[in-house]
């Protein structure tokens, strides 16, 4: 696993459970590329806190680690890689 100090905040949408990210416009987005990327530590803690204030739209806000590849965030852990695909790896037809 590559070492990284970058993180983004994610959760599941309350109504359909879909993966969402805390976006640059200060709300939840379904586009990974629009997620706010911050440094691990104080900045990530603060972002998670901000995103967790109102949990009426989402479930389970948490941070996960990303790398920046060609200016875009890419999850490092397999779990988040799979979550970001929005459908099971064995059912690409559902995308």
């Amino acid at each position, binding site marked *: *696993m590559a070492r990284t100090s970058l993180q983004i905040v994610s959760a599941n949408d*309350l*109504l359909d*459970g*879909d993966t969402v990210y805390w976006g640059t416009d200060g709300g939840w987005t379904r586009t990974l590329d629009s997620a706010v990327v911050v440094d691990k530590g104080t900045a990530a803690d603060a972002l998670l806190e901000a995103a967790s204030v109102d949990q009426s739209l989402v479930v389970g806000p948490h941070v996960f680690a990303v790398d920046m590849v060609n200016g875009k965030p890419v999850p490092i*852990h*397999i779990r988040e890689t*799979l*979550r970001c695909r929005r459908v099971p790896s064995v*059912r690409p037809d559902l995308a």
Partner: protein
Amino acid sequence: MYRYDEFDSDFVRDRVKRFRRQIERRISGALTEDEFKPLRLQNGLYLQLHAYMLRVAVPYGTLNGRQMRQLAMIADRWDRGYGHFTTRQNIQFNWPKLRDTADILDALADVEMHAIQTSGNCIRNVTADHFAGAAADEIEDPRPTAELLRQWSTNHPEFAFLPRKFKIAVTGSPNDRAVTKAHDIGLRMVRDGDGAPGYEVIIGGGLGRTPMVGKVIRPFLAKQELLAYIEAILRVYNLYGRRDNKYKARIKILVHETGLDKIRAEVEQEFSTIVRSTAGSALPDLQEIARIESYFAPPAFENTDGDVVDIVGAGDKEFLAWTRHNLAEHKQPGYTIVTVSLKAIGAIPGDASSDQMRVMADLAERYGHDEIRISHEQNVVLPHVRKRDLPAIFAELKRVDLATANIGLISDIIACPGMDYCSLATARSIPIAQDIARHFADSTYAETIGEMKIKISGCINACGHHHVAHIGILGLDRKGVENYQITLGGDHTENFAIGERAGPGFSAEEVVPAIERLIQAYLELREGPDETFLTAYRRLGQEPFKQALFPNIQPARAA
């Protein structure tokens, strides 16, 4: 099959109504997730990696055509056209929307189904032999027992908050197809010296993080003593089971740490107290048992006979292969038990599309006395089929890719949803199962290998029963990358055994070659085609198989 009475029906409807209001309050913000989560779990609604998941109870794995058709309707209307049958004989819908779940539960209630007690620290859906009421080797149908336990445990106030979840399995046959030794309580129908049926009671079995073999706490329990005795076990567990540590809270740990003899003494004492204090009223009266049993009376079988081969001649090789592998002996001459494989090569084990569900419903109604069973091995069973209807059934199944002739063979793999769906997973299970099935797709090769049970879990919780597989595969997380550990020699039957870990894990790509090496070693080492992998393993021990798995093992890499 059992029909709900008015009480059951009102109770289920009332629960749906209440849950509908709770959903509205969560959406409006009146309930926080912390407040809502236990409520949704009590109604079978989980949140997974990509979406919600609704786990629907299929009590003791028994369904009729109408219920199966309703599941298909739900899959089409509120989900994405399919469902997943689990090792707990339940069905899971993977894509329900929060707002729709009350409607789904109402639609289930229309066909006397629900999602109650599919989650939480209560007595879960009671499981049973999937050949119940049909198997030639059966002492008695285990389903009336399972139904009695279902009624007794539903909403039982004393046991709604146990230290941990509690699972009961019942088998009516000496051939244990219900994995009774891996349950909190396992019941095996036996006869006493006078030939009267009763139960051998097993407790403290389980898989998961700490696999344990169930132990016989009572070699014989009379039928009418069942509820009082189970209640005594639950009371002792409720009192002494650990609540301080989730991983030590199951009854298996209590039995292990306290010792079987001490637990037995406590249970027997509690049992006599219950019987004495209630003057026997805690026992179900025999009339009530007889009432429940009457719902499970065998269907009106006709006097028929005829061998499958007689009917079709020797012509169709594919059909004959299917009859070799997918049928089991029925107690009624001329009848057979059909296992419909949900393991077409490359398919997702346990998944069925709505079309497939409808075909199975039709076949059950047309040819199978309207009975369907879900097996813990994630297949569907038509328990009462006339042999002469087999060609028609086969043709219909084939049309929807349900006629794979592989029951008990290497591609009949159990796989839990793993990291493709499950939020607790440490690795994926399904793609590993698909890769193995594809690799061994050649039916001649699979038949040469013979009986083989591969079971895959995507984490230590072991929903895929990997501990009791001939070849078990456990998916783990090694620094963010999937890694698969292999266990050997497990057995879920009456010769129950927990598999032994064979060494360090493999990457996803290394799993199929590793299995192939194991199979090659087995084929070379076996005494003949009649010696199964498991028998050969028991005769030879782990060493030769370990060598096959790790031919170039360096001392530093050894486990």
